[in-house]
């Protein structure tokens, strides 16, 4: 095998498995907050994401029934759709939302469960989330669960049968980046299911840091959709996820307090031989 081919193999044979399905991209994106469907389509394509979140909402009765629908732009034939339970504050509402999503998407059972605690922080209500998880797992759903960065709770969700655990890096839409890298690292080290950072990423370096910590992927929406140029940011995030993942796999050097010369110390021509 040539060197070029070896590098190629190194880079490409690193799939992400969620619920037994193989994905090439470790970037998952939301479809909210875009200015129109064209921007949604272009940014989603530029991100290279294969798993794309959608929200479930009431249809607008009496308004133009011919307005373009999201699923015409983000086709279930092309993407793995991940319906979310955003806006739910109780286990009951989240379960209803997932059941409606499964019916809407012809039996598709991969869902992003989020049960929120309050509007100011959008932090998860863990007690309600646990209750919803129990019902959904029993009901055959494959649950990717939004949670806080608590390693104990993250492990509990894994034990309950979630197919992925998704700790927040910072509050949803805050762009504050990875606020507690040590907890994220502990969650990753304890896990046997994929760990994805969900929420809090602000820019490409945040996504790279999440991946360097060993996360299996990152789910984001606002960081892309809210950027001045969402399509360019989608492309930046794609590269950051890839770069961070490769850096994690490559194994970084240890941090040291003092210098270590990169060039050999021996053989400099201005040294006096004794």
């Amino acid at each position, binding site marked *: 095998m040539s060197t070029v081919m070896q590098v190629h193999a190194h880079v490409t044979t690193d799939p992400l498995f969620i619920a037994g399905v193989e994905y090439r991209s470790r970037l998952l*994106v*939301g*479809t*909210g*907050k*875009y200015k129109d469907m064209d921007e*949604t389509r272009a940014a989603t394509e530029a991100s290279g994401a294969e798993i794309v*979140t*959608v*929200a*479930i*909402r*009431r*249809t607008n*009765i*009496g308004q133009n*029934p011919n307005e373009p*629908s*999201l*699923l015409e732009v983000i086709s279930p034939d092309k993407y793995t*759709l991940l*319906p*979310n339970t*955003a806006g739910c504050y109780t286990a009951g509402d989240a379960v*209803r939302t997932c*059941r*409606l*999503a499964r*019916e*809407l*998407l012809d039996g598709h059972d991969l869902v992003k469960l989020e049960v929120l605690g309050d509007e100011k922080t959008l932090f998860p209500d863990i007690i309600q989330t646990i209750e919803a998880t129990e019902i959904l797992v029993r009901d055959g759903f494959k649950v990717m669960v939004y949670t806080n960065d608590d390693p104990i709770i993250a492990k509990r969700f894994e034990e309950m049968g979630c197919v992925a655990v998704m700790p927040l890096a910072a509050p*949803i839409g805050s762009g504050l980046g990875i606020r507690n890298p040590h907890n994220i690292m502990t969650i990753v080290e304890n896990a046997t299911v994929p760990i994805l950072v969900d929420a809090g990423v602000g820019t490409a370096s945040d996504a790279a840091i999440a991946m360097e910590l060993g996360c299996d992927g990152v*789910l*984001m*929406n*606002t960081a892309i*959709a809210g950027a001045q140029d969402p399509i360019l940011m989608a492309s930046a995030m794609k590269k950051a996820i890839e770069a961070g993942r490769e850096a994690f796999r490559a194994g970084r050097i240890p941090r040291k307090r003092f210098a270590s010369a990169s060039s050999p110390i021996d053989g400099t021509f201005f040294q006096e031989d004794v």
Partner: protein
Amino acid sequence: MNIILNGNAREYPDTLSATELLHSLGLADKRLALEVNQEIVPRSSFDNHIINPGDRVEIVHAIGGG
């Protein structure tokens, strides 16, 4: 009869099937999901499922979200 459709009161002259309801709303061929009194009505049952007075009907679809 009166029903609650997506949170708003609506009046219909007579009971009707889910298919007829969707048709009247211009949503017959749309990708959506239907819940009546918090129970899912599968697409395959739309023709037979009768909407009764007082029913709480939710019609949902997928929109952008994160």
